[in-house]
């Protein structure tokens, strides 16, 4: 029997017995091609990949939206402190907003490619392309998250050596919204890492 990439069990055809009797136990056994098994597993991984991608889109959009709508005006007025805080004031937050929007936009555009890899589980070129672009998106998202975290840490704790005051004491709401945007961006980072792992697992050819 031809042995390509399918596992076939060669049994002699037995007319009399219906089921597999106790004496000989021979019947026609289904041939399950190994390629189909691999395709089934890859299809499952591709479905999980699409689900994770949609989750990462929501997290990235949430991070960008929360940061974009974070501004707070204090009702009072003092001589030395500014009474308005917004993401515009810090270049790190502007970079965070732009980078998370870029990541969200890329993830939205990559959902069709991911769906194609569900339909065709053996196309490894698309998976490789998605993996490379996912790594770039991961770098962008992580750098945005890291830069914003540094500023948020300073806003919460200040720094005595350089006389940088902790602004969270005045702008409590601004601090909270910015911190939650940073948390959403870290959720995006972890989700994209899992997507990269899935793509690497699905690229194997046995």
């Amino acid at each position: 029997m031809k042995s390509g990439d399918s596992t076939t069990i060669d049994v002699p055809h037995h007319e009399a017995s219906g089921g597999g009797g106790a004496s000989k136990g021979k019947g026609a056994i289904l041939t399950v091609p190994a390629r189909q098994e691999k395709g089934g597993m890859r299809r499952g991984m591709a479905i999980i990949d699409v689900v994770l991608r949609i989750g990462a889109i929501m997290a990235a959009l949430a991070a960008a939206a929360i940061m974009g709508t974070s501004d707070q005006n204090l009702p009072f007025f003092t001589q030395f402190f500014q009474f308005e805080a917004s993401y515009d004031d810090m270049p790190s937050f502007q970079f965070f907003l732009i980078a998370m929007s870029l990541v969200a936009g890329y993830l939205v555009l990559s959902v069709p490619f991911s769906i194609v890899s569900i339909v065709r589980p053996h196309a490894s070129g698309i998976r490789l392309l998605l993996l490379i672009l996912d790594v770039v998106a991961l770098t962008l998202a992580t750098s945005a998250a890291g830069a914003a975290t540094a500023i948020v840490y300073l806003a919460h704790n200040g720094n005595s050596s350089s006389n940088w005051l902790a602004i969270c004491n005045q702008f409590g709401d601004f601090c909270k919204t910015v911190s939650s945007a940073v948390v959403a961006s870290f959720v995006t980072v972890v989700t994209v890492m899992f997507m990269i792992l899935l793509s690497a697992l699905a690229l194997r050819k046995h």
Partner: protein
Amino acid sequence: MKAGGAVDATDKEASKPIPIPKVRVSRVLSVLDFTLRVVAALGTLASAIAMGASRETLPFVAQFVRFRARYKDLPTLMFFVIANSIVCVYLVLSLPLSFVHIIWTAAKTSRIVLIVSDTVMMGLLTAGASAATAIVYLAHYGNSSTNWFAFCQQFNSFCGRISGSLIGSFVAITVLVLLIIIQSVAISRR
């Protein structure tokens, strides 16, 4: 004619594209992976040392301005040094595994392990480098809205040192991205 027949045969062979043996491409990828790993280890080591050895003491004494700057004064820069050290140690420890891949190009599970750990370390390094960049930006320009003062104006050499140490880290980030891509191409080829 014999000569004509011979010419025809060589023409047919010459017109066919010569297939590059798969093992050779995988081996080239593995050697490239090993070399880039060494480069990234050196980059992170240089960054950690440059940031760790950065201190400056101003010659005068003023009443309200601090006259000594070290990387320990800013927790973000300390995180940067720690992250770079961790990634440097990881890269050095992964060099033997990468060397094994040059010899044994059919390895799959170890390549996947290497991809996963490379991704995690890249995330750590990128977070540390970008956080330190945000702080260095503040040190250069300050922030008028929050009254954060740019201390580069006093501590010139400290500022120059911490700015320069970011370069090695960013080079290592780029190299780590390339490493992940190389490993995934190597997995998909066999």
